């Protein structure tokens, strides 16, 4: 799920960046530092949309670096248990398949794939229904439900299921 929230961060800036462009420098550095990171609480920071305010800088003893408290608005993406997501399949193997929804990697175990879909190994491993009408392979787009998440320091890993109503392949570029 996406959220638009306000976060705060202390930015340390080298004295060489002081000057007219100070604010720009801070923002540029903030974007560089923050966008794409992941925290367990908020999830992935997708984009910074605005700066609320930049506080007064404080010179650090000994280094000359100045730290500015920066409040910024950003869009974060955090997967939740039970959430329905659309994701792109990145890899298929006999244990299931991996899909990605933006920065989030989701594994769908073969236990959580409908029983009528079977694994077909080969050059392009895939899961196919017995009548061959539905096929999940690399680059397929699937709709899935997240049933569990694991949050590491730098990534969020989810397991999902497509064993439910209205879940499964929504678009298969390979077929088109």
């Amino acid at each position, binding site marked *: 799920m996406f959220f638009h929230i306000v976060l705060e961060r202390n930015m340390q800036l080298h004295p060489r960046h002081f000057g007219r462009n100070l604010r720009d420098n801070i923002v540029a550095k903030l974007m560089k530092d923050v966008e794409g990171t992941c925290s367990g609480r908020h999830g992935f920071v997708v984009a910074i949309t605005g700066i609320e305010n930049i506080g007064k800088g404080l010179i650090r003893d000994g280094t000359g670096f100045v730290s500015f408290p920066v409040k910024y608005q950003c869009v974060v993406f955090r997967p939740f248990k039970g959430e329905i997501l659309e994701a792109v399949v990145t890899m298929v193997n006999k*244990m299931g398949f991996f899909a990605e929804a933006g920065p989030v990697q989701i594994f769908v*175990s073969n236990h959580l794939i409908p029983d009528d879909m079977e694994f077909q190994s080969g050059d392009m491993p895939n899961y196919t229904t017995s009548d061959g009408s539905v096929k999940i392979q690399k680059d397929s787009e699937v709709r899935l439900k997240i049933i569990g998440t694991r949050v590491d320091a730098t990534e969020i890993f989810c397991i999902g299921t497509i064993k439910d109503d209205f879940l499964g392949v929504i678009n298969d570029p390979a077929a088109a």
Partner: protein
Amino acid sequence: MPRRGGDEDDDDLEPEEEGYFEEDEPGQLYDEDEEEEEEEVDRRGSSRKRPRSAFIDDVAEEDDEEYEDSDEDYGGGGGGGGGGRDKRKKTRKSGQEFFELEAQVDSDEEEEEEEGEDDFIDNGGADLPDDDGGRRIHRRPLLPREDEQEDVEALERRIQARYARSSHAEYDEETTDVDQQALLPSVRDPKLWMVKCAIGREREAVVCLMQKSIDKGSELQIRSAVALDHLKNYIYIEADKEAHVKEACKGLRNIFSQKVMLVPIREMTDVLSVESKSIDLSRDTWVRMKIGTYKGDLAKVVDVDNVRQRVTVKLIPRIDLQALASKLEGREVVKKKAFVPPPRFMNIDEARELHIRVERRRDPMTGDYFENIGGMMFKDGFLYKTVSMKSISSQNIKPTFDELEKFRKPGENGESDMASLSTLFANRKKGHFVKGDAVIVIKGDLKNLKGWVEKVEEENVHIRPEMKGLPKTLAVNEKELCKYFEPGNHVKVVSGTQEGATGMVVKVEQHVLIILSDTTKEHIRVFADDVVESSEVTSGVTRIGDYELHDLVLLDNMSFGVIIRVESEAFQVLKGVPDRPEVALVKLREIKCKIDKKNSVQDRYKNTVAAKDVVRIIEGPCKGKQGPVEHIHRGILFIYDRHHLEHAGFICAKAHCCVIVGGSRGNGDRNGDSYSRFANLRTPPRIPQSPKRFSRGGHPMDSGGRHSHRGGRGGHDGLVGTTVKVRQGPFKGYRGRVVEVKGSLVRVELESQMKVVTVDRNFISDNVVVSTPYRDAPRYGSGSETPMHPSRTPLHPYMTPMRDPGATPIHDGMRTPMRDRAWNPYTPMSPPRDNWEDGNPGSWGTSPQYQPGSPPSRAYEAPTPGSGWASTPGGNYSEAGTPRDSSSAYGGDNEGPYFMPDILVNVRRSGEDSVVGNVREVLPDGSCRIVLGSSGNGETITVLPNEMDVVVPRKNDKIKIMAGVLRGATGKLIGVDGSDGIVKVDDTLDVKILDLVLLAKLAQP
């Protein structure tokens, strides 16, 4: 066995009679209440003599029965009919048969009275005189006992129904606690007395008492007598007074009534409470066989007969059909004890093919059909076997998945069997639930109720139910509970083979969870009982000994690889073979060491790649993969790609098949630097960054030769790259270039041996003062470096006044030259090497302008020859210069210093005659420690080079070569030709012509 078949038919027709035969069986009467027993006897109202004999017979037969049980189990026949019985047993039996038969007749008589059926009596009567026939008759009730147990059970039920109305109805199990309380003994009730009796005769004693009470009727004032199986040597008698007890025991030789002890009221209930042990065994419990062919096999309880202490279990048969066929045909079967047939489901068709008779019969109790082969019952391929409770163990049975899988196989409907997994937990270890665990009730009224553990007591677990409208907490027996997980839970395995692994629950199949392991991304099957919920991420064991998961290790055979998996006793190592992933399973001892070097290589475009840099593979099987470099060794990169599922995400690739993505992290600018963007700009990776990277002479980027060498020295130890000489230790005398400085150790690349050795820093001298002239040194030939001489300018020494030893003698003496350079602001401008190379006497010789500088240095060199200088190798320029002086003694040949250990020198001291001495050690400043006396036993002195000269060898002297490629070699001077000597080198036995000046007489050891 036609006869037998007929009997069975009879049995089927007349189950009642059969049943009454069975009534004579052991246990049954005993295990019923004493009271009931008495009652029954009373009811029968038969003669006094006969029942007694019946009882005695029972006792006797029970022993026999037990023996039989075990024998059956051992033989594996499962009551396989008479064919397998050995003779010994038959004979043993025959004596007792009379008792048995008598008893049978007795009961039959009763039967007759009651039911009026006499078929059997006729049979029995007819057979009685005939010994042979009698045996057969006897066998008949025994055999069907296995097969037709249900008949017995039916009978029992009828008996139960019959007596249900009678007095012991009050012991109904449904009684509440309050009712039970009311039944507790009080002071007004008869007391319980403990009486000693002969060991092993407890039952007999009680039976005697019973007989006595029957005989005497109300005369005997005791109420009851009890013998407990677990209590030897004592029986209990219930009576109002002690005198009654004594009276009753009078005349019974088994009972010693001298001492009668009163059981306190409080303990009375304990005496008669039933041990809970046997209750454990219920249907669907998993047990293991203790003895016989099936020893150790998993079995499932199908039926429990607590009264007779027998259980019917379901087993996977271990039957050798061939042997069975021949046995049933009456052929001799060779008993091979060692051979135990493998467990296999019984295939009825197969049996029929072997002409084994298969009967299909309906079980009267359950209505199920069983296939009967040779007395064994099969259903769905399983063997149903009735065994004594003693021959199975039910404690701590932990069936493996394999076993369970097998048990499930033919049933097809896995559900019911999987559900029975719940019984697995019947005997799990204690203390297994903790507060907060999510649990589900698996048995009883509350089945499928979910909740959370609130409190754990001994046996009971208090749970907070999920459902509303229920009491706040419920106490549930822990055996009725199972941990509950939902897909998506993150769990850790706390016991079993997968202990320590963590993962997310993918699927819950009753009590089995399928977990997706965090590290291996593989599925693991575990019992719900073995896991706990946890947010921790581990892979189970991650290290053995010094080696941890993802370490780069050197293997025994000099190959190397990354540990990608740690198993219980071995590692899986992805070997450093770039073309294809090669995984080896290695034991701890096969690993030589951990490779912990931090080095860097170049990628395809000659960019420097260090550990943690992100690279993309552009060639080979893993083309397109991308990830941070975890290890680098011998030009091979180990890249970690989280999308790569095999080999724990590690990919092995050649460095030049990869390109670096983004900037290099190796520069250390990334972290902690606030303007990292600039850092990236600043680090065009083609520019050499780290001085360390250029420490190797062979570095292709090192086009600047010595200059870049020096330039990079700034933050690093200046010693690196310098040419030094080892002056102590096993490599004493060798020259080489410093490759690396590690604390007090220096790694030196030897010039003569093509190898890198590690020496103590104090053991090197880096002004190379006593080395041979550079032009002779092999490094010139290598061409990898530009000769230093041409780059030198004569004026140079004056440009760096600080370097002038005369001006700042202390300064120089205290400091190493490279230090100097680091501090000297001028050094980066001027070719620093040259500056320093001035220390080389060889070069001094060609820079006459320096000469004026040296004389003052003499002044301070003289007072303390060799004392203080040794500690400042290379710092002493003035001394370094001196050898040139002495070398001039040889005709200005400018062949520099060549003193080396083990040569003879003439020491000239002022005012003294020259003395022959033996050079022991060449000090870094060029002076030598010399042992005086040609034999090397005089005093040791330190002599400056200009105070000594080499003893010129004569023909046939042993010599040592002091310069040139053969420096250090010994040989024999076999001839002198003018200024040249003809030398036969010891090592190679080559004959060389060398300048005599380069030869010194070898000191004789």
